[in-house]
């Protein structure tokens, strides 16, 4: 293989990216060495098994990916802003919308949610950590190195270019001969295994580690949403595992699953992809529903309306989510029967979703609404998401879908669902729980500015796409002629995209500003919260709760404040058992990274060696004897006094 086949060449933007990657890497290494932070980084972050730190790392990675995917999006909008634009060529545009999709769904939305659930869930159920802290670290590093592997494709070997859904036969070696789609199958596989493990970990955590007295129907709604999400992850991801494995076999080992000769079936890929892909949508949306439920209840100062029906509708959504995947390819030519069945199941999802919307609205009723930044996102969610929802029902009608399928109408629809749904939710959750992790609030004024930029620009960007779609503009077109009349609305959309960029930059500036100047919160409960996570001091000590809280009803912390009843019994502190940090998950992630990289290029011998290292780290794990350590009573007392000192 020649060097110019190995590295991506020919585009000034890519050279710039290469240079900046090298410079940033050098800067990081130099900085760590100069400030002697290698040991700190290794001991406190790379080897950590603490759910809060793992959560923070997830969120940092997700924010980085948000900007990577955001730049892709901006380039796409810029390219299509005017007819016959020459900013990007067809191939480059194809790679960009492909990676935009993969990164935003799998490496931004999901990890952001997983990050928030890592930080919040153990605190919300009154637990010391998750059920399997080591496995949790493994999950993170597999996600992280999977994401890095995909990003590497930008400079080495070429990015995947067959769309994020990678339909065969387009994604086969015949029509997509670069290694781009090998990156796709391998990086998603590695990250996907990590996600599956996260699902198992959180399901067991929520089922088995709740504080005494917290029955299932006394769990906070966010915990419920994560319980259901974990179930969907556990049962949907194996399908992706199989689909990606078959893709790899077809591309690199000459099998015939989706090939056109010798009996292969190209439709089967689409089928398997969406058997996973539709539940995936609910994996990113249900936690958002949970976050909004927490925030709306907190800032309306009212308990959640219709708690039971909220839970039932989430369970219903989780079951239905596995029954609707065919609506992604109504136009594949199966008969009226198949399309009708899946139309009806799809529309049925609107029923539980509608129930939730009305329950949120009635939570606001008779409330006392304060418009904090997280609450603004939660409130904006309701009207915008409803547009996404009703257009979803329109798309669910098979006959009508023949006119929407693959058009900008569809693109507008899913952005109207995913952005107010997932993205607003993770930003809201991030503002909401930020003080819990770092001990100070983000600046409200900057936060509100960012909110208005994001909320308004979002609509300016995506509403025109509905109209473009109805006017016959298909998605994934890198250019169009002036006679189509698509120009003006695309330009408007570009203006919105710039506004969104400003909003997101404000969001980041807010972190910088608040870190330097924001007032420190000493109460641990800056929003007057309702659930257990607000009962510990902020930043949360390593062991979470000095004494395990005892729960008697929903919104336990709220009632303990109102009724002045303590959350814990009077007994003395006891030593707390904690897991030890360990480098094995990180090393395993690195080994997986190299395994994936060598596999991408079909370099079998290095791949086998890296695979053996992976097995070696597993063997190490089974033979090691690590019983963790105990935090002594004196240390707990000292920590509690330091953190709660100012209060008493």
């Amino acid at each position, binding site marked *: 293989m020649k060097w110019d086949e190995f590295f991506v060449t020919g585009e000034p933007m890519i050279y710039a990216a290469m240079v900046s990657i090298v410079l940033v890497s050098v800067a990081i290494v130099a900085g760590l060495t100069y400030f002697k932070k290698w040991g700190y980084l290794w001991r406190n972050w790379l080897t950590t098994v603490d759910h809060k730190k793992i959560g923070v790392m997830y969120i940092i990675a997700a924010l980085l990916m948000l900007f990577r995917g955001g730049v892709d999006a901006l380039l796409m909008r810029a390219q299509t802003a005017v007819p016959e634009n020459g900013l990007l060529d067809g191939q480059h545009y194809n790679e960009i919308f492909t990676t935009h999709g993969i990164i935003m769904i799998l490496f931004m939305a999901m990890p952001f949610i997983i990050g928030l659930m890592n930080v919040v869930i153990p605190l919300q159920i009154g637990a010391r950590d998750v059920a399997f802290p080591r496995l949790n670290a493994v999950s993170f590093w597999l996600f992280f190195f999977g994401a890095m592997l995909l990003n590497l494709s930008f400079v080495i070997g070429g990015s995947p270019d067959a769309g994020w859904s990678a339909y065969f036969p387009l994604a086969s070696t015949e029509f997509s001969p670069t290694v781009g789609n090998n990156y796709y199958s391998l990086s998603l596989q590695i990250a996907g295994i990590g996600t599956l493990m996260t699902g198992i970990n959180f399901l067991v955590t929520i089922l088995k580690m709740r504080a005494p007295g917290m029955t299932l129907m006394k769990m906070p709604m966010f915990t419920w949403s994560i319980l259901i999400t974990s179930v969907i992850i556990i*049962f949907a991801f*194996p399908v992706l595992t199989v689909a990606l494995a078959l893709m790899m076999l077809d591309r690199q080992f000459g099998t015939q699953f989706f090939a056109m000769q010798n*009996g292969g079936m190209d439709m089967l890929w689409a089928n398997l992809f969406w058997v996973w892909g539709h539940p995936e949508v609910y994996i990113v949306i249900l936690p958002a529903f949970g976050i909004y439920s927490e925030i709306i209840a907190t800032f309306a100062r009212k308990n959640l309306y219709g708690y039971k029906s909220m839970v039932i509708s989430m369970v219903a959504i989780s079951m239905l989510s596995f029954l609707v995947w065919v609506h992604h390819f109504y136009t594949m030519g199966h008969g009226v029967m198949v399309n009708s069945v899946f139309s009806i199941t799809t529309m049925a999802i609107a029923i539980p979703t509608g129930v939730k919307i009305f329950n949120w609205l009635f939570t606001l009723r008779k409330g006392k609404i304060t418009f904090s930044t997280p609450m603004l996102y939660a409130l904006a969610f309701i009207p915008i998401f409803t547009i996404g929802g009703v257009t979803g029902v329109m798309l669910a009608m098979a006959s009508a879908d023949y006119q929407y399928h693959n058009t900008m109408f569809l693109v507008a629809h899913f952005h109207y669902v995913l952005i107010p749904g997932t993205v607003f939710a993770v930003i809201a959750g991030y503002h909401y729980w930020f003080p819990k992790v770092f001990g100070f609030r983000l600046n409200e004024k900057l936060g509100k500015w960012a909110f208005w930029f994001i909320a308004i620009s979002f609509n300016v960007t995506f509403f025109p796409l509905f109209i473009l779609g109805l006017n016959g503009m298909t998605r994934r077109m890198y250019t169009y002629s002036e006679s189509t009349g698509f120009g003006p609305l695309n330009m408007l959309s570009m203006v919105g995209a710039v506004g969104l960029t400003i909003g997101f930059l404000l969001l980041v500036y807010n972190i910088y500003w608040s870190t330097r100047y924001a007032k420190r919160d000493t109460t641990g409960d800056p929003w007057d919260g309702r659930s257990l996570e607000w009962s510990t001091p902020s930043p949360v000590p390593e062991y979470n709760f000095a004494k395990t809280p005892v729960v008697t009803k929903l919104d336990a912390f709220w009632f303990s404040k109102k009724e002045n009843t303590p959350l814990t019994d009077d007994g003395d502190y006891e030593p707390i058992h904690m897991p030890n940090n360990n480098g094995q998950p990180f090393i395993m992630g690195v080994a997986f990274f190299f395994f994936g990289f060598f596999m991408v290029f079909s370099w079998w011998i290095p791949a086998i060696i890296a695979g053996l290292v992976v097995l070696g780290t597993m063997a190490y794990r089974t033979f090691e004897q690590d019983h963790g350590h105990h935090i002594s009573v004196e240390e707990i007392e000292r920590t509690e006094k330091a953190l709660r000192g100012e209060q008493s």
Partner: protein
Amino acid sequence: MKIDHAKPLEYSTEENRLKILGFWVFLGAEIVLFSTLFAVYFTLVNRTGNGPAGSHIFELTPVMVETIVLLSSSFTIGLGIHAMRIGAKKAMMTFFGITLVLGAVFLGVEITEFVTYVHEGATIQTSAFLSSLFTLLGTHGAHVTFGLLWGSAILFQVKKRGLTPETANKSFIFSLYWHFLDVVWIFIFSFVYLKGMM
């Protein structure tokens, strides 16, 4: 670590109970994984392209041998766990050893079978049907192979460290895994081989 002596050793600590539940959940995911492979197989079973159909290459004898061997290994590991619960470390190790040997025999027969197929011109690249067949059988076979490595590591630990809450827990979880592979095989036996020869 609190040890609850009222429960069997493998359930005796909180951590052990979490691990057993977690593994059951993992097996739930495995059910979906194999279901997907079956879905692929059933979809492609008649799409034989220019290669042979199942009825032309399947042979009853090796398949019966594999079935009996795997069923027996599932029986012996069940006995192994029983022995572990009554504290008979030596018997337990013997049963585990027999299980692993039977697993290796199964794998040997399966590999011979694959070699025969390939000699008959039925490779994983020949047709969609054969791709899905080899992938389904291969995934099961890979699970057995991984089981052999994992089981040996556990056997070694039991020998060295004795029956502790930790080793008992690992052994029990391993037995769940092994029984599960047996269940998967029963479905392969019925719906791949017997249906194919029907």
